[in-house]
């Protein structure tokens, strides 16, 4: 009955490192991968290739800030303005320490903003902490649909 984590990441190296970090955190949640902002929105709104997916929102969206086509801020804005998605937790996961990105993200209603540490050990710990907090400890917002694992 665990809700999946939606990881939105276009950089294959970051993706690999993040998946390694998540797997080391012993989380049982499924990780859905979107490779750009448009794909993430397709998943979240059950559009296109995800038209037939099981209904329900992810436990958390780990969102890269810089993405091709639709960037992280645009995805966040879209989530916050879509009924049924509004309260889904979104964590901005980024290399950018730029204040403008941080401010903009909070303005748009991000739940957390995490700068990916350069040091690998710290990176792994950060990702694990995130996963545990949002996918396990955090009580999901009321009224969000229950997620049922699709039959294998």
């Amino acid at each position: 009955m665990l809700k999946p984590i939606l990881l939105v990441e276009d950089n294959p190296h970051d993706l690999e490192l993040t998946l390694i970090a998540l797997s080391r955190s012993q989380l049982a949640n499924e990780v859905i991968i979107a490779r750009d902002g448009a794909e993430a929105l397709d998943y979240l709104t059950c559009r296109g290739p995800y038209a037939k997916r099981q209904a329900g929102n992810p436990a958390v969206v780990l969102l890269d800030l810089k993405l091709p086509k639709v960037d992280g801020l645009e995805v966040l804005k879209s989530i916050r303005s879509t009924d049924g998605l509004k309260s889904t937790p979104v964590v901005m996961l980024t290399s950018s320490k730029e204040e403008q990105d941080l401010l903009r993200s909070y303005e748009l209603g991000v739940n957390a903003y995490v700068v990916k540490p350069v040091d690998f050990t710290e990176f792994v710990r950060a990702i694990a902490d995130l996963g545990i907090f949002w996918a396990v400890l955090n009580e999901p917002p009321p009224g969000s649909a229950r997620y049922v694992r699709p039959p294998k």
Partner: protein
Amino acid sequence: MIQAPPAPSPFDLSSCDKEPIRFPGSIQPHGFLLCLSPARRIVQASDNLAAHAGVAATAAIGGTLEAVIGAAAAEMLLAELDQDRLGERPAYLATVQLPNDSWFDVLGHAFDGLVLLEFETIARTAAATFRDLFPLVGEFMQQLPAAPSVEAMSQTAARQIRKLTGFGRVMVYQFDRDGHGHVIAESRDADHPSYLGQRFPGTDIPRQARELYTINRIRLIQDANYTPSRLVPETNPLTGKPNDLSFAALRSVSPIHLQYMRNMDTLASMSVSIIVKGQLWGLISCHHAAPRPLEFDKRSACEQLGQVLSLCIESREDADDLQFRLDLRRIMVSMLAGLTHGADFIDNMSQVFPELLRFARAGGAAIVVDDRLIRFGNAPDEAQIRALVDWLGVNSHDDLFHTDHLSAAYPPAAEYVSNASGLLAMPISRIHKHYLLWFRPEVVHTIDWAGNPHEKDGAQNLRAQLTPRTSFASWRETIHGTSVPWRSGELELAIEFRSALLGIALERAEQMAELADELGRANKELEAFSYSVSHDLRAPLRHIVGFSNLLMESDSDPQTRQRFLANIKDSARLAGKLVDDLLSFSQMGRAALRPVAVDMADLVQGCIDKLAGEVGERKVEWRIGELPVIQADPTFLQLAVYNLLANAVKFTGQQELAIISVDASVMDTQTVFRVADNGAGFNMDYVHKLFGVFQRLHRMEDFQGTGIGLANVRRIVERHGGRVWAESAPGEGATFYFSIPNELDS
């Protein structure tokens, strides 16, 4: 337009202004007046009726015309009146002989409900004939247009009128702006002293007299020593008010004026008005030492000559003014041409200073814009100009301020009268105290007054004030602190010049706005630059660290270790390329273009050769059309073309056969190049991001790139004055276009 108020005139005889000269209640006695009611009854008569016609005025009232002037004369006049052609201006009706054998010319006009019949004594014993006068007017009309100047025309007019009238002195006066009369032409006999060149103070002719001169263009006083003949009854019986005798030829004149004439040793005078553009421009003034009659026919001829002279002056002044404005406009156009060249408005202005002075016939000029003050020629010093501008800022709020007597309006200017007695100040901003100033030097001049005008100063008692001055001896006055006056053409052209200047300033402001846009974009790029240093460069470094860490963990299999190694190499390469791209991008903003003739066929081929490494074993079909030679910076342009071709190679990576074509179309003003591929294409929704710095439309693993390549292309093309754009649809390849102007501005 604002004009400085004139300095208070020292010649003020204001009570003269109040004399009711149109309603004197009397006439000159060289004729008599009968006023008829609409029923042709005599309702008013002058009291000299008895002297002229042998019937007392009181006896005539209520009676018929016949009873006073006899049946024959009355019949003749009534027949004329029945034709009902009387207007406000007196018309010649007939020449009549009264029962007492005296002969009169009769003029009639209608006013205030009455018919006014004026009987003027004449020497003739026959009707007036105008036939002799026509050749005279004809001759005059021929002479006038040939005269070289207004003064020469006036001279001709004076001579002709003296010939016609036999007056001893005929002068032509011109009134100046302040109403002072200036004698510009004169014809006289030896017995009459000359007044040529003299000035008569404006107060010699009071305001209401000027008005009357404007509506009634001729006035004769036969004998300054006359005793006026009063009207009986005193008021118009129809209105109960004094008769308005504005148009009556016999109208009695002010006793002050008669005294003035006597003081001047002039017992007869006649004035003919010169009306130019509806304004009293001047007078033809005739004097004679002894009393002198002048019959209606000759007066009519004089009036005609006066009108011809008026028209000729008007057309001459128009022509002169037109020529003057044309010359001014020529100077203005050359100035404006000079002003549009350089970037700095004030520097441009100082380039055209000589024209600026010629334009305003000025000795000096200055421009004041914020802290900058530039002086040229004969101008007050900087502190003086600053103080003057402060004063102008408070005291003038219009398009222009001008004066030919600055120290009268602004006393501190007394310090620099020699430089700036005249000022034309033009605000060149609607908000700030920015001025263009022209200065005219002092023109010290002398005025020959006909009599000392200051003698009429207010220190005298009221009685003395109403006594006209007695001295007509020439009195010379030296005038200080004034400049040549500003002509209306100059002021109007200055306003035109000002709006052209504001237009230029506006255009400049637009250019500045464009520049600001450009600057804004450059700043944004700079931000993107620093952003990418913090963001894009940190990512590959983090990857190198991460995969190195993983590599050092011993538990992974050799295949995984191999992949980690490849990732490290890949990240290091990307980091290096990113640094290179960033450097070239930032360089492009600074380096100067060095355009030469570039053979685009060679350039494209060079890029294709360089791309061989990227293409590797892949099959790429290059379709290169005919490419022209253009003007461009070869190093930069090569980078742009290389980026576009590399882009095409990159995005056709998944095609079995990549087809990349390059061609060009040469147009009138620019050449447009096209790079088309059959690759992955992109969604046009994101086209606005395509040429931005560090924007990628594709995922990292699909197409490697730093996101700077197309930004570089755009920057290079725009530095050449061209434009770059793209068209595509996902899966259908992409086409990139860029244009390079055929003529580069550099």
